[in-house]
């Protein structure tokens, strides 16, 4: 508790408040803009924050930029709902369900209440998941501290299995992406022995492929190229917003769904690989099942907006738990956040709370503040954000390319990385357009060095005996769980049951 108070002290510093505010505003804008989801938004902003915080000392810079980036993350989660409701075009996949009832409400002239309920639900869910985060962080990281290299290796394998098992339509493709990401991570100097691998005497490659370049290329540029090639434009009219304050009746109707959505979303969020999209689907289905008027769903039921919006925000809070306590990102966006932390030499994981308590608790406290800001900002400003939707793609697309190039150049200061960025942009478009999920690739790239080091450390202590991973009980259990995660959906598919998959996280 004392730590949390200290965290609030960090988060309430003037510049951190400013960063949280900036993150939330940019995040909402990112979520509202069609085509840029939370993942590309966060990736795009890493270099920008890196240059903004360059005047601070390293620890403060890390805290401030992670505060900003986390703000972008949950801001985007919220912003995505605005387009779903007003335009029937979800800004990102986790608000697909919101469009079902939200757009119907907008058509009936209740867009204002729908947006307000989405904001209130997101806020409540954010607070619930943060309280749970505070309660669970210490005990979980204490457990994780007892892990040795073998256990860590298996835990990360479990993380990869979970994400690959649920991403995309083809598990083969998802696994290919994971392995490809892991392979890319081996390029550069080997951290254990210092031997150069796959560098072919190209000096730029000795440091390995920069995570930032790959992520911005795959997500941000990939999306832009797709928009250019498919000539995506939004010409539909926007629904009128009308009265913003929801009626007392509507509030009463949505209390239950918000509470259930928050809890469910949080639980789903902790599971690696599941993420916000699944959480919003599950909570919508749950509400429909227990509702006294299931026929109302799809025709503008307020519960159909409240529940999934709360769930996807709670899930993004829940996803921070494995990231902060175990050092294992459970989704594409958290993988990018982790990459950002590692750029500042802050290693997420059980030691984070001991080594950098200011970063960990500052982030948690700032998420409380950020959520409050979101609520205050969005109620009156929702009309202004709705205007952002009208930004013509004509200016948006080239600007995103220019920001990506600036960002990568500002951090790396080589033109080599710009070429790499453009290359990964094309690759990102081609792969995503053909059902090869990108999240596992990024996850593999981030986790690769850690998996390899732990594997080699475990094997060194066992003199090269691979059975060490099975002999340690915890490691064995984790590996079994990983195998189950792969096998169970496979069997369900064989039985003809459709498995819900995450299109993008």
């Amino acid at each position, binding site marked *: 508790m004392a730590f949390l108070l200290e965290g609030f002290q960090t988060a309430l510093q003037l510049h951190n408040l400013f960063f949280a505010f900036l993150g939330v505003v940019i995040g909402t804008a990112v979520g509202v803009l069609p085509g840029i989801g939370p993942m590309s938004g966060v990736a795009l902003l890493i270099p920008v924050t890196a240059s903004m915080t360059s005047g601070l000392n390293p620890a403060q810079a890390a805290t401030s930029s992670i505060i900003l980036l986390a703000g972008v993350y949950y801001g985007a989660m919220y912003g995505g709902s605005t387009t779903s409701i007003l335009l029937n075009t979800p800004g990102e996949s986790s608000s697909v369900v919101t469009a079902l009832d939200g757009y119907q409400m907008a058509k009936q002239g209740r867009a204002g209440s729908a947006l307000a309920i989405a904001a209130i639900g997101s806020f409540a869910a954010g607070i619930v998941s943060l309280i749970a985060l505070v309660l669970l962080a210490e005990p979980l990281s204490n457990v994780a501290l007892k892990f040795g290299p073998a256990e860590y290796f298996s835990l990360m394998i479990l993380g990869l299995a979970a994400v690959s098992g649920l991403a995309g339509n083809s598990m083969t493709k998802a696994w290919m992406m994971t392995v490809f990401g892991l392979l890319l991570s*081996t390029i550069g100097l080997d951290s254990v022995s210092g031997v150069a*691998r*796959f560098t072919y005497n190209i000096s730029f490659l000795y440091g390995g492929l920069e995570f930032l370049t790959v992520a911005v290329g795959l997500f941000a540029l990939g999306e832009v190229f797709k928009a*250019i*090639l498919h000539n995506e434009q939004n010409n539909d009219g926007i629904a009128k917003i009308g009265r913003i304050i929801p009626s007392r009746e509507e509030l009463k109707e949505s209390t239950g769904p918000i509470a259930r959505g928050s809890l469910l979303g949080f639980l789903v969020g902790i599971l690696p690989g599941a993420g916000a999209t699944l959480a919003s689907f599950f909570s919508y289905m749950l509400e429909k099942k227990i509702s006294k008027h299931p026929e109302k769903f799809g025709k503008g039921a307020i519960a159909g907006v409240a529940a999934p919006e709360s769930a996807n925000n709670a899930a993004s809070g829940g996803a921070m738990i494995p990231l902060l306590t175990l050092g294992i990102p459970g989704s594409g966006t958290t993988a990018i956040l982790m990459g950002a932390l590692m750029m500042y030499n802050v290693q997420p994981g059980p030691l984070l709370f001991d080594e950098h308590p200011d970063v960990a608790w500052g982030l948690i406290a700032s998420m409380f503040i950020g959520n409050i800001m979101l609520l205050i900002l969005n109620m009156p400003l929702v009309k202004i954000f709705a205007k952002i939707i009208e930004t013509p793609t004509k200016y948006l697309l080239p600007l995103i390319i220019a920001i990506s190039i600036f960002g990568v150049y500002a951090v790396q200061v080589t033109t080599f990385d710009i070429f790499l960025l453009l290359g990964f942009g094309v690759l990102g478009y081609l792969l995503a357009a053909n059902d090869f999920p990108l999240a596992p690739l990024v996850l593999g790239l981030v986790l690769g060095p850690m998996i390899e080091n732990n594997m080699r450390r475990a094997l060194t202590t066992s003199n090269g005996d691979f059975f060490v991973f099975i002999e340690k009980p915890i490691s064995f259990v984790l590996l079994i769980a990983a195998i189950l995660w792969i096998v169970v959906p496979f069997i369900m598919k064989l039985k003809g049951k459709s498995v819900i998959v995450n299109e993008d996280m």
Partner: protein
Amino acid sequence: MSKTFDRVAALTFLAIGVLFMIESLQISKSTYGSVVGPNVFPFLLGLILVVLSIKLLFETIGYPSTRGEKQRLQYKKFWMIFISAIFYAILLEPIGYVITTFLFLIIGFQTVEKGSIWKSIVIAACFSFGVYGLYVKMLQGTLPSWPIWLK
């Protein structure tokens, strides 16, 4: 899903896997202090990638034959922007950030949609000068400045 793309992709990844396996054999095997050298992990991964690629190749046999509906893609616009982005990267260091960014944005705006040239110029100028001013002058970052012959 596209049968052709998946087959090409499977073969490409197969080749990548094989390449990594062969190349990892060149890396020195053992290092002082650890039994498992730097070659083991990439070799295993290459092997797994090869196996998965072959699995995908077999899966493509089961795909339904190509569907008729195909969206017309704007290749011309894409190549235009992509090639100007490459020139942007090449020219960035020789002639500086502001000029290249300005030109790239103008070309980009006009490629996506022709017209309102003045608005394009204003936005491009605001962005290129704005970023340069903010980042280099205020935050003391490093960006290639003006070309020598302009100074």
